[in-house]
């Protein structure tokens, strides 16, 4: 047999069917983020219909958002077990069922369940797998793929907002929910496009059994570390199982809690949880603030449209910029800069008193918002690697869930207490600048530590092969998969280390 071909650990395709997957993710992510926002059009009518207060209706939105983010770990576990495709298709079905049953609701409590929980859970099953599968199909062009897929959110919002208005004017809220249920079933179409990838895992496992580990390690060094360590981890788990089952390892197969020991993951988690405190509140209050300064309703709505259009363009553009050879190795810095830039916009907003000033603010806000969103998942993938990303994204979203829900109400309390919107903007700006600075400093530290560890590993590898026992070799691989800084190795054009390993030691 020709081991070079059969045992070759394949890297992600970075193209081909991958672009179709990006389109599917575009649709899926778009629905997940834009749909809750688009529902706001119906709330006034539903409130009048059931005779409830506005806050009782707002709970529908909150429950939906909380479920979408809170069900992240469940989504991750399901993807780890079944892969992205069935999860997304089931999610789409769930969303459809949720909205269709919402059309027949006779009380606000039933709406909480149908729209809030069921549809929210369905959207959670859409969001995570879509982001995960991009990491499986792309490596070199991943920032572009992420940027394009995340652009789905503003595009869907711009489509859903007038569509919802049209449906509402022609079919009332019940008919609209029924039709929206059918529209959400399109998530199943998006899911159908998510062809499973990573069939190479099966290939690698059988080859390992036949050929022995050393030869395989050699090949893996040639082909690129990131994907191989990703494939190696399940292989490692299997061999360790053969030796004696470890309970912790078994849980880790479903949801990787060892991530909490991962330095990069912790940095990302803390920085992002802080950032989300000030992320969404300005969007929620932009239109009310504009009306407060005396601008009429249509111009205030136009501000949000400007934001959405700039956002739409900013996301793929940021993806392209982040993919360039100057930025990609230092993408964490770029991300921290984007967050701090966002914060700076909010801090400067109170200075904008005229409509022109607010238009300028909206444009910059749209740009900053798009930059952060485009890189939101890319940076996490960069830190933990595609294999552990599945679990990482689940754990991150449930942590973010709390601050996302707290952000707008805290802003609202600030506005009500001081009677002035500027304190809310200052609070959001300060929180984000703080988060950006924290991430910048901590990532600098992380990059230094990774460079140090890389040096240590290289000096170990330069030893003759006979010194390397199987155990030590395995330890090295485990270290790789925990820190995964080496992911950047194939991409860095500097550093002779890469070239050495490419030629095989």
């Amino acid at each position, binding site marked *: 047999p020709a081991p070079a071909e059969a045992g070759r650990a394949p890297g992600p395709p970075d193209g081909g069917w991958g672009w179709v997957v990006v389109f599917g993710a575009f649709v899926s992510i778009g629905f997940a983020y834009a749909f809750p926002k688009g529902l706001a059009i119906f709330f006034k*009518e539903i409130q009048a219909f059931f005779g409830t207060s506005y806050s009782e209706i707002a709970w529908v939105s909150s429950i939906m958002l909380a479920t979408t983010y809170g069900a992240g770990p469940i989504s991750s576990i399901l993807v780890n077990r079944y892969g992205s495709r069935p999860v997304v298709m089931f999610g789409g079905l769930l969303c459809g069922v949720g909205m269709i049953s919402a059309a027949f609701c006779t009380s606000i409590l039933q709406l909480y369940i149908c729209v809030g929980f069921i549809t929210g859970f369905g959207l959670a099953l859409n969001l995570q797998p879509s982001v995960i599968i991009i990491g499986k199909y792309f490596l*070199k062009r991943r920032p572009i793929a992420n940027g394009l897929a995340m652009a789905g959110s503003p595009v869907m919002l711009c489509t859903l907002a007038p569509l919802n208005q049209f449906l509402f004017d022609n079919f*009332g809220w019940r008919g609209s929910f029924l*039709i929206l249920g059918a529209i959400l079933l*399109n998530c199943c179409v998006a899911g159908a496009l998510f062809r499973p990838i990573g069939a190479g895992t099966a290939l690698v496992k059988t080859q390992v059994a036949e050929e022995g580990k050393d030869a395989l390690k050699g090949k893996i060094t040639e082909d690129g570390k990131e994907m191989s360590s990703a494939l190696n981890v399940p292989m490692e788990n299997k061999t360790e199982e053969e030796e004696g089952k470890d309970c912790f390892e078994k849980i880790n197969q479903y949801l990787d809690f060892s991530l909490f020991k991962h330095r990069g993951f912790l940095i990302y988690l803390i920085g992002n949880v802080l950032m989300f405190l000030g992320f969404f509140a300005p969007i929620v209050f932009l239109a009310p603030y504009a009306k407060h300064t*005396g601008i009429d309703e249509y111009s205030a709505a136009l501000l949000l449209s400007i934001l959405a259009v700039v956002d739409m363009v900013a996301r793929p553009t940021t993806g392209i910029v982040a993919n360039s050879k100057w930025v990609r190795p230092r993408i964490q810095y770029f991300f921290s800069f984007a967050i701090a830039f966002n914060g700076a916009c909010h801090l400067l907003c109170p200075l904008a008193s005229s409509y022109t000033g607010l238009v300028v603010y909206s444009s910059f806000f749209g740009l900053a918002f798009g930059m952060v969103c485009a890189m939101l998942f890319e940076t996490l993938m960069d830190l933990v690697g595609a294999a552990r990303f599945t679990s990482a994204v689940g754990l991150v979203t449930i942590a973010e869930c709390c601050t996302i829900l707290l952000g707008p109400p805290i802003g609202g309390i600030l506005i009500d207490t001081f009677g002035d919107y500027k304190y809310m903007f200052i609070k959001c700006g300060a929180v984000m600048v703080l988060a950006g600075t924290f991430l910048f400093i901590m990532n600098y530290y992380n990059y230094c530590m990774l460079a140090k560890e890389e040096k240590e590993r290289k000096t170990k590898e330069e030893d003759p092969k006979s010194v390397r026992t199987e155990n030590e070799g395995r330890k090295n691989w485990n270290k790789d998969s925990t820190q995964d800084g080496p992911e950047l190795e194939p991409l860095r054009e500097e550093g002779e280390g890469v070239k050495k390993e490419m030629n095989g030691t």
Partner: protein
Amino acid sequence: GPDLAAEEFKPASKENSYEVSEYEIVLPGVSGTALQKNISVGSPTKVELTCKLDEKANLKNPQVTWKKGSETISHTSKTQNSWTIQLTISESSQLGSYSCILKGEVEVSATFHLQVPKIEGKERPIITYEGDLAVMVCKTEDAPVTWTWYMTSGTELVAINTSSHTNKFRIKRQSAKVNRLEILKLTKEDIGVYWCEAAFTLGSSKRRFELKVLSIMAPLKPFVAVVAEVIILVTTIALYEVYSKKYSKKKGGKGEREFDQIDQI
């Protein structure tokens, strides 16, 4: 321009069981857009309307007249640059537009419109379904004396009597300022125009609602169309995938050639 009605002050004092409400317009002293203010008056009250000249204005010592239509009203001057009239509104004929006119090098004026409170409600047609419930909500700024709901039969307005139609109509008082009509078990015959009327001591105002009743078939058509589209697309994608797998298997070698090995790092 900004809505000046937002600048209303709270009543300053109570006299003769009528509360006095003070309203003010500040004139910039430049002839341009005529300034207006809408004041809702539902029950008898005392009002003080003041026109104040901005300190930065070029107009000095103008000649001031207060008018309602063609009738002049005597005014007082509380400060050097403000002029006030005091009115006791106890009849509907006393509602209307009161203007202050300042004549000097230029002529500027401002108008206060005293009106019966308007009713807020849904402007677009209300869309409901057969067998469902229709809800119409009317809201006012000040509490009226009575609320009445009408339905149109032909060209006439017929008051809705809930005692004679207990299974069909329900009128709920959510608060003094919010009133609600519920129409149950809708049929196509309920399509039409409905009115809600708020009666104040000084007059009444009305609001029009249009009710449309659709059959369940109406949204079902686009629903079925979208579901069909989803099924067609999912089937197409599945068939394409099966076909392309078969095709690559036939070509030889492992079937899992899904990734282009040229693209490897």
